[in-house]
């Protein structure tokens, strides 16, 4: 355990796993052979030789992106991207930087810069700066021995969060994840703990390296980035997002939407997990984090773009599917093998077309009353069922 110091998690270097360099000439013929290897963040991935080659290319692209970011720091100053945020100044250079930054982020933040860039651009730094320096330390030490329904569920889920991961699945990994989740459950007792947050927090830990920063990223995500009440009580926010998503699918991918509807396939069946785990259980790690790059800068609408893209990419195949199992198969095969983040993000942001945060907010407002009414009605029916029985 790394005790009360809340220092850096020393994990990255150790398991910056080596992807085997395969000689395509020999192996290409055996492309259907599955190999197991560790990805950039230590997750075990199963894929074929093509997947390995894609991952190697992705690594090269990540390195290139790194060079782009470093040279920008050199020419514009170390924290140049922070200036794009000050809304009071309307200087031309600020505007230009803003456009550059958006484009740059969609192309990916290099893993080494991610902690710093996420922390400032998401608003986490600001959130942290409004409380005393010792907030996190005080919070976690004050609550570490408390037992609540939330802590019970958290304890139950620690070994069930990315089991087998070389750092998360160690006593130290469990203890760290526990402090973050338990700490948050006391910060916001309406949320407490919702299953799904364990995966999100775990991935935040792997990226941010310091648990305190991971905690603040979780806080900003739940309090400012995502739709309200995504994880509370009856997941009403998540229900709202599902409805908004269905409408968007009808608008942006009308053929798919009509086909699935004719099959009586409710897209929420597959999308719920995406919106609750923010793709961390569905997409390969670097692809997930590329989605989060955009999420933390542009907001929760990015999740809609990505979800729409996953359907869009499979349009022809989906239109030929006639069984629920086939639809799910197509979707899962795609998500699990999206090792090239650009393949997904290009569709998500270039092909799906523009959606503003204002449009999405309006859509949410429109859906909210219906969701609340439905949930309320269901609750009353349930209560009367249970009453009758007593």
């Amino acid at each position, binding site marked *: 355990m790394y005790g009360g110091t809340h220092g850096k998690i020393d994990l990255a270097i150790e398991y910056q796993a080596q992807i085997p360099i395969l000689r395509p000439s020999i192996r290409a013929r055996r492309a259907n052979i599955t190999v197991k290897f560790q990805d950039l963040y230590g997750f075990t991935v199963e894929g074929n030789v093509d997947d390995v080659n894609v991952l190697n290319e992705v690594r090269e692209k990540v390195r290139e992106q790194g060079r782009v970011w470093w040279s920008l720091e050199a020419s514009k100053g170390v924290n140049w991207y922070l200036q794009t945020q000050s809304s009071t100044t309307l200087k031309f250079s600020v505007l230009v930087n803003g456009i550059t930054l958006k484009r740059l982020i969609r192309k990916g933040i290099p893993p080494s810069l991610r902690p710093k860039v996420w922390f400032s651009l998401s608003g986490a730094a600001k959130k942290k700066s409004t409380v005393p320096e010792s907030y996190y330390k005080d919070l976690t030490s004050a609550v570490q021995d408390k037992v609540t329904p939330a802590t019970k569920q958290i304890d139950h889920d620690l070994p069930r969060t990315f089991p087998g991961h070389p750092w998360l699945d160690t006593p130290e990994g469990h203890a760290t994840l526990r402090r973050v989740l338990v700490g948050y459950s006391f910060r916001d007792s309406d949320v407490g703990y919702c*299953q799904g947050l364990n995966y999100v927090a775990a991935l935040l830990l792997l990226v941010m390296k310091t648990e305190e920063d991971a905690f603040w990223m979780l806080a900003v995500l739940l309090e400012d980035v995502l739709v309200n009440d995504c994880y509370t009580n009856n997941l009403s926010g998540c229900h709202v997002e599902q409805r908004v998503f269905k409408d968007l699918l009808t608008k942006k991918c009308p053929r798919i939407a009509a086909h699935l509807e004719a099959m009586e396939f409710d897209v929420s069946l597959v999308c719920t997990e995406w919106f609750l785990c923010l793709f961390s259980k569905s997409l390969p790690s670097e692809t997930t984090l590329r989605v989060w790059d955009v999420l933390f800068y542009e907001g929760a609408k990015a999740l809609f773009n990505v979800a729409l893209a996953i359907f869009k990419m499979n349009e022809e195949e989906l239109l030929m599917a006639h069984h629920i*199992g086939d639809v799910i198969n197509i979707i899962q095969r795609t998500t699990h093998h999206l090792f090239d983040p650009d393949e997904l993000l290009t569709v998500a942001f270039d092909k799906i077309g523009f959606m503003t945060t204002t449009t999405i907010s309006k859509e949410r407002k429109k859906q909210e009353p219906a969701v609340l009414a439905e949930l309320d009605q269901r609750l009353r029916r349930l209560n009367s069922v249970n009453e009758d029985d007593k």
Partner: protein
Amino acid sequence: MASSGNKNINSKLVLLGDSGAGKSSLVLRFVKGQFIEFQESTIGAAFFSQTVAVNDTTVKFEIWDTAGQERYHSLAPMYYRGAAAAVIVYDITNQESFERAKNWVRELQAQGNSNTVMALAGNKADLIDARKVPEEATQTYAQENGLFFMETSAKTATNVNELFYEIAKRLPRLQPAPNPSGMVLVDNQSPSERAASASCCS
């Protein structure tokens, strides 16, 4: 009807029950014949399929393995709507999980679809020393509520294939017609032999 040869039917099956009761483990055992000590917690739901042969009929179960945490309850109707079968799972070492199982039974009964085959699975039967929910009382409860009841262990595989096979047998479309033209369900093969090859899609 009896001589109509092979039939294939698709049946939607949903698993409901408390978090940690072992829903995913039961499905994994049934579909892939495996058990994993630390099974990832399910978010939303996961989909699997597996076929079971009952006499001349092949039943393809389309299985929805749902998330167990209380607040996921509000998502459940989407998964159990139109299900031909529901397996309600509790953990025999955890009384609370049994109370939640009873709530699920009530909720499904209130849906008013009497065609849904309902099964109650008391899982983790291998942990006999830690038992909190007595078997006999549960059997009585199950009978009173028209549930098919079995204690299972995803860990040791006890009664897992049997559970799904018994459900398949009870599906309305496999029941003899009210005026049977000679069709009898003969059970001369062990259930585990009948659980046919896996066709999981994960």
